[in-house]
């Protein structure tokens, strides 16, 4: 009977091809939207987002406007629950939302190597730590900008030597360029000697993040600049708040894609069954059970959806893997990455939509009035 289903689909190959293509395009978009949602989810949750804090200047949003004394790091590190503090100077080419945002993070190279979950894919840490204008570049930025080790990369007043390309277990990190703190502080136009944009605070395992955040703000209230300390996830969500709303809205686009596949495959299957209603009557006259006739139609619609869905999902994952896409604003970025969950949800959604799309025509085929259908020309 599988042969019957496959041959039926092959017989109407133009219709099959169009339906599969439509399903593939819709599932491609569905997976892309899904990857944006996943990127946001990753950015605002997980160990890195929950167990570290960002100390930023109070009432400031864009990194160019936050200027904290570097010395705050020493005061923060004395507080209970704080494991390490990394002063970071941030420079970005664009404070507004952009698909090709370039974000420099200047910090102590040794500290970066010890505290950040980075792995060099090419280049050397030694060059990064010893050369003043050396930079290690996240692989997504390198992919987008076509950078490789040894290249000179300039943007605005900043010019760096690419000393390494890194990957990270935190996908958004792969959209960053790390330089030494001193190099970025003394960059022309920044005038930030002794100042940093933010302090990243790593907490000990037993510390309560919110309590430590309050203590930091309380302690630094007496300093020259008031601070606002938040969990890293909350800080990034707040920084990207405009995008978060947009991404929240984009999930409707994902649902619309599912609806599109549903109506496309349902229409194709209804047409197919109505064209062959006599065939189903013949099959039942021969002895095919109504339930089996129902399963034949469901198999047809599910196969259409599965092939289209699998194709769209595979293409989306490939594009996400090769493209290194990210969207960012105000120094924070959301990375669009392929994932096993995304593949699984694409395939599962395709199967589900295939079954739902085939239900009405399948019932029609199973309950066909045999005698009337056999009389049809």
């Amino acid at each position, binding site marked *: *009977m599988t042969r019957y289903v496959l*041959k039926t689909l092959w*017989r109407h190959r133009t219709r099959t091809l169009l339906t599969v293509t439509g399903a593939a395009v819709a599932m491609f978009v569905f997976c892309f939207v899904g990857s944006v949602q996943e990127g946001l989810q990753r950015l605002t949750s997980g160990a890195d987002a929950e167990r570290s804090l960002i100390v930023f200047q109070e009432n400031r949003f864009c990194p160019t406007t936050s200027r904290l004394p570097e010395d705050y790091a020493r005061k923060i590190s004395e507080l209970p629950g704080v494991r390490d503090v990394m002063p970071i100077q941030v420079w970005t080419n664009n404070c507004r939302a952009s698909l090709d945002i370039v974000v420099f993070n200047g910090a102590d190279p040794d500290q970066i190597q010890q505290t950040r979950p980075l792995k060099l894919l090419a280049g050397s840490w030694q060059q990064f730590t010893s050369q003043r204008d050396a930079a290690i570049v996240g692989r997504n930025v390198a992919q987008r900008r076509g950078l490789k080790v040894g290249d000179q990369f300039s943007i605005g007043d900043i010019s760096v030597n690419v000393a390494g390309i890194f990957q990270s277990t935190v996908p958004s990190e792969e959209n960053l360029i790390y330089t030494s703190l001193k190099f970025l502080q003394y960059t022309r136009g920044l005038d930030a000697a002794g100042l940093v944009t933010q302090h990243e605070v790593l907490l000990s395992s037993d510390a309560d993040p919110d309590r430590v955040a309050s203590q930091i703000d309380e302690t630094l209230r007496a300093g020259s600049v008031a601070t606002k300390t938040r969990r890293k996830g909350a800080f990034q969500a707040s920084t990207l708040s405009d995008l978060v709303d947009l991404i929240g809205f984009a999930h409707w686009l994902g649902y619309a894609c599912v609806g599109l596949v549903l109506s496309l495959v349902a229409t194709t299957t209804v047409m197919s069954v109505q064209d062959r209603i006599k065939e189903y009557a013949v*099959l039942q006259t*021969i*002895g*095919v059970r109504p339930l089996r006739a129902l399963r034949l139609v469901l198999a047809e619609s599910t196969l259409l959806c599965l092939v289209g869905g699998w194709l769209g999902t595979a293409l989306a994952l490939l594009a996400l893997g090769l493209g290194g896409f990210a969207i960012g604003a105000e120094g924070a970025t959301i990375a669009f990455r392929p994932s096993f969950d995304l593949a699984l949800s694409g395939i599962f959604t395709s199967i589900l939509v295939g079954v739902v799309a085939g239900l009405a025509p399948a019932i029609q085929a199973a309950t066909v009035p045999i*005698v009337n259908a*056999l009389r049809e020309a």
Partner: protein
Amino acid sequence: MALVELRGVSKSFRKGDETITPLDNIDLNIEAGEFLSLMGPSGTGKSTLLNLVSGIDRPDSGTIMVAGTDVTQLSRSKLADWRAANLGYIFQTHNLIPVLTAYENVELPTLLLKLSSSQRRQRVELAMEAVGLSDRAEHYPRQLSGGQEQRVGIARAIVAHPKVVVADEPTGSLDAETSEQVQVLLQRLNKELNITLLMVTHDRDVAAIASRQLVLDRGKFLELAEAGQTS
């Protein structure tokens, strides 16, 4: 006990405001191995009777026992199982599945039975051989002539070794020469394989090949004659 027994079977249809009763309280026995032809003018209920015996239609009243099973009492699903095991149906318009080859069309009913693949292959080959189409096994219906299509339809009807085969105007859409070939084939199946056949036709010459001929007129049967007495 007859292989097919109809007792008090009635069937009516609504046509606009009018009620038509083609079968009115009829009785009929068909013995095992018998070849019965059923004639009558159009609209007298011949095909309706065939459909009732096949279990693809239900009577308003009466019982239809086929090989000891009252088919009027079975659910649609049980009827499908029963047809797969007990009934072969030869259609006037062949009704082969266009996407399947001749072999695959004949194989279809065997897929519904619990048979091993070798048993299945053996049955299909025998049925194809019986209708003389072994050399056309890989041809699709569109590559066959009308007569060959009908012979594939006949092979499909007998491949599951049914207890009874019904044929609805099996020569109705064939030319005279092909019709004769199909008639000879049906006669041979009945005599050599002892297949019980119930055939509906409005052609007297075709009806004459059966061992028993009935005419259905105004809801009642008229026995015509024993085989060989009609010509």
